[in-house]
């Protein structure tokens, strides 16, 4: 996805502080993005020092179904590692 100057940027630190822990927090956040449906967004992870595995799982689920093109920027190595881990787990998992 190319980033254009017109794309809305949301600084996640303003919503979450430096930590993203619960699934509920992610659900509430994505619910608040309803107005951007069918559009594009940049989520700026600057200042997010930790995101839990559960939160990443919920994030990846919601990203798939929210109808918004989302681009993440400024992820720390720690946050990136958690995203990669959960993405692999979701790929390998079987739906029940």
């Amino acid at each position, binding site marked *: 996805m190319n980033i254009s100057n017109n794309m809305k940027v949301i600084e996640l630190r303003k919503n979450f*502080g430096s*930590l993203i*822990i*619960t*699934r*509920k927090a992610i659900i509430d956040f994505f619910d608040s993005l309803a107005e951007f449906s069918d559009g594009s967004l940049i989520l700026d992870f600057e200042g997010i020092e*930790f995101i*839990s*595995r*559960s*939160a990443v*799982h919920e994030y990846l*689920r919601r990203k798939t179904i929210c109808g918004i093109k989302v681009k993440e920027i400024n992820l720390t190595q*720690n946050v990136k*590692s958690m995203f990669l*881990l*959960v993405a*692999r*787990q*979701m790929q390998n*998992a*079987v*739906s*029940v």
Partner: protein
Amino acid sequence: MERNELKKIFGAIFEEFIELNRLLKFGQSLFLYRKNEEVKEGVEKAFKIIKQEFPLRLHNVLFYLIGELTDNISQHSHCLSGVLVLSFDKKSGVGEIVVVDDGVSIPGAFEKRKIGFKDDLDSVEMAISGKSTKKEKGRGFGLSSSRRLVEEGLKGDFMVVSGKGVYRIKGKSSLLSKPFCGTLVYVRFEDSAKGLNIYEYLE
């Protein structure tokens, strides 16, 4: 937080398994859920305590454990009260974490979803092995990954008490004669003074 309130709600389970006074000598307790309401600042305070009281090399693993265990309360327990206790004896390097709630318990949650199990210990072992009451792809990793991180990464102790089931890594798993109406997860470890890459244990 009122120590008396903690003892009133969870005193019996602590008395049976963990010395609460010792825990609170070197640690702090925080309500995560109180009278059926989420205490929003509870987990944030917990992370501040970790940053202030525990060595930097332990932060990531503790963030991970607290994140998973507290989210389990939110997702599964339907509790009135949920408490987190964090303790670190800087002299001995011994750290302890307790996450406890008075909710439906693991066997109770499985029963509600008509997931079959032999007895309450079996249900706890199933949960720790990755069985989830949620149907979405990629669920069921919380307890299993936490156990692995504690056992293999921290070389520590991991115990889960839920219903009548008592699961332990160190020591014998067993069945209680009287059920605990809730779930308690206990972690104990000794700081090895080495860094720990949590991702090695989470695949």
